[in-house]
């Protein structure tokens, strides 16, 4: 197995162009499990850790550009107020040791339907900055997930950063697991209120072949909420929203949970997350 150590981003792109089969490694918290369990040895590893530019983030206008090397720990510590939904999800990933190494870019590279970054990225409308020696491509998050553990990256492409719109309203993430730490989600849900556009964003995790939005639920809710008066949430609306979120999912039975349990818990999570978000919005009063 070859070990490729680029020092700069351009070198990394050149290596990947020459060896498209090389596996990029950032935090290694997915890649290493595969290597240790001998589930397929990569022909070559492309170590992205020496590329220091990847570990930075910047707020560009209303969007935060999060470099591919920014760990969950830093996201929690530094971006909790700009990207509250993603930071909440990051807090639930693995353990503190995993969060000290794992990254959102690695979560996207792995593209597991259970990855915790995906629901908040969908709810906030993120864009993946992918690049190869051929050029740069901005991939809307809704087009990024193409199948179970498959994504839209071409073999010679690398993720350089993720662009996430800064929150303009309350955001919440909710996840079901067997205990409070170190759990892969049985299923998960994220909501983002975008009051400026009178719009709702959602993301469903671990309940379909790919992470996905609940578009009908978003549209229903956006039309029902009292955006101007900020009056209390109609319980009937909240319940219907939960049902529509569950209808958007197509879960399977597996070792972590049964499909019908996933559907039920999704509707409960969606209703509760909406309750928390609306309470924040209504409590804030008119701006």
């Amino acid at each position: 197995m070859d070990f490729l150590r680029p020092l700069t981003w351009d070198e990394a792109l050149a290596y990947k162009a020459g060896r498209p089969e090389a596996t990029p490694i950032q935090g290694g918290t997915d890649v290493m499990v595969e290597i240790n369990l001998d589930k397929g040895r990569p022909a070559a590893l492309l170590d992205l850790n020496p590329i220091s530019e990847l570990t930075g983030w910047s707020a560009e206008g209303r969007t935060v550009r999060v470099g591919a090397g920014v760990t969950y720990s830093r996201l929690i510590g530094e971006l909790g107020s700009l990207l509250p939904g993603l930071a909440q999800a990051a807090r639930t990933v693995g353990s503190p040791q995993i969060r000290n190494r794992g990254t959102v870019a690695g979560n996207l590279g792995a593209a597991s339907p259970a990855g915790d970054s995906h629901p908040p990225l969908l709810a906030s409308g993120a864009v993946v900055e992918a690049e190869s020696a051929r050029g740069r491509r901005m991939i809307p998050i809704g087009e990024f997930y193409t199948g179970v553990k498959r994504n839209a990256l071409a073999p010679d492409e690398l993720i350089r950063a993720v662009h996430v719109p800064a929150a303009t309203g309350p955001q919440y993430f909710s996840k079901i697991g067997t205990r409070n730490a170190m759990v892969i989600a049985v299923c998960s849900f994220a909501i983002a209120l975008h009051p400026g556009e009178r719009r709702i964003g959602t993301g469903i995790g671990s309940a379909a072949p790919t992470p996905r939005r609940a578009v009908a639920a978003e549209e229903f809710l956006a039309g029902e909420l009292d955006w101007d008066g900020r009056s209390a949430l109609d319980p009937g609306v909240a319940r219907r929203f939960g049902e529509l979120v569950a209808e958007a999912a197509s879960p399977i039975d597996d070792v972590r949970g049964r499909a019908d349990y996933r559907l039920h818990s999704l509707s409960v999570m969606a209703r509760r997350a909406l309750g928390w978000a609306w309470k924040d919005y209504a409590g804030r009063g008119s701006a």
Partner: protein
Amino acid sequence: MTSGDLSRRRFFAQAAVASVGMTVPMSVEPGAPEADGLVEVAFTVNGKGERLRVDPRITLLDALRERLELTGTKKGCDRGQCGACTVHVDGRRVLSCLTLVATMDGKRLTTIEGLAKGDRLHPVQQAFIDCDGFQCGFCTPGQIMSAVAVLREGHAKSDEEIREAMSGNICRCGAYPNIVEAVKQARS
């Protein structure tokens, strides 16, 4: 706003720690692998410079145990779930089983062997003894490395917070209540 301000502050904090009686080895030139497929890395472990030629698939955990004979770091699950292999890399706790030693070039590592000063135990080691924070002891090096980091991170303000911050370290004997007590003793 950028992350630059924050990381600069962190850099200075680390630089200050690194300058206290530690030798930092020259890092090896990065670039293409050598013809025999081995990779050369240089780093410090517990203040001592080390230079190894390694198969790129070797984990930091195996390199510590098999090449450097630092067997205090334990191999539990080898897949990131148990925390027994926790070490510090540049002051932050990571799992050595999920870290390739080839990525450690130029890094500053601390293992359980590096905590005591001669015969004087680190306060967290002493606290684990005083509070009976272990039974069989297999998870203990990882628990202690995590606890040292938890105290440094400032995440030990309540029992609840300690439990959450220590959640990446599993103890199959179930010494959790005493581990929490040990972290509290070391905190004060």
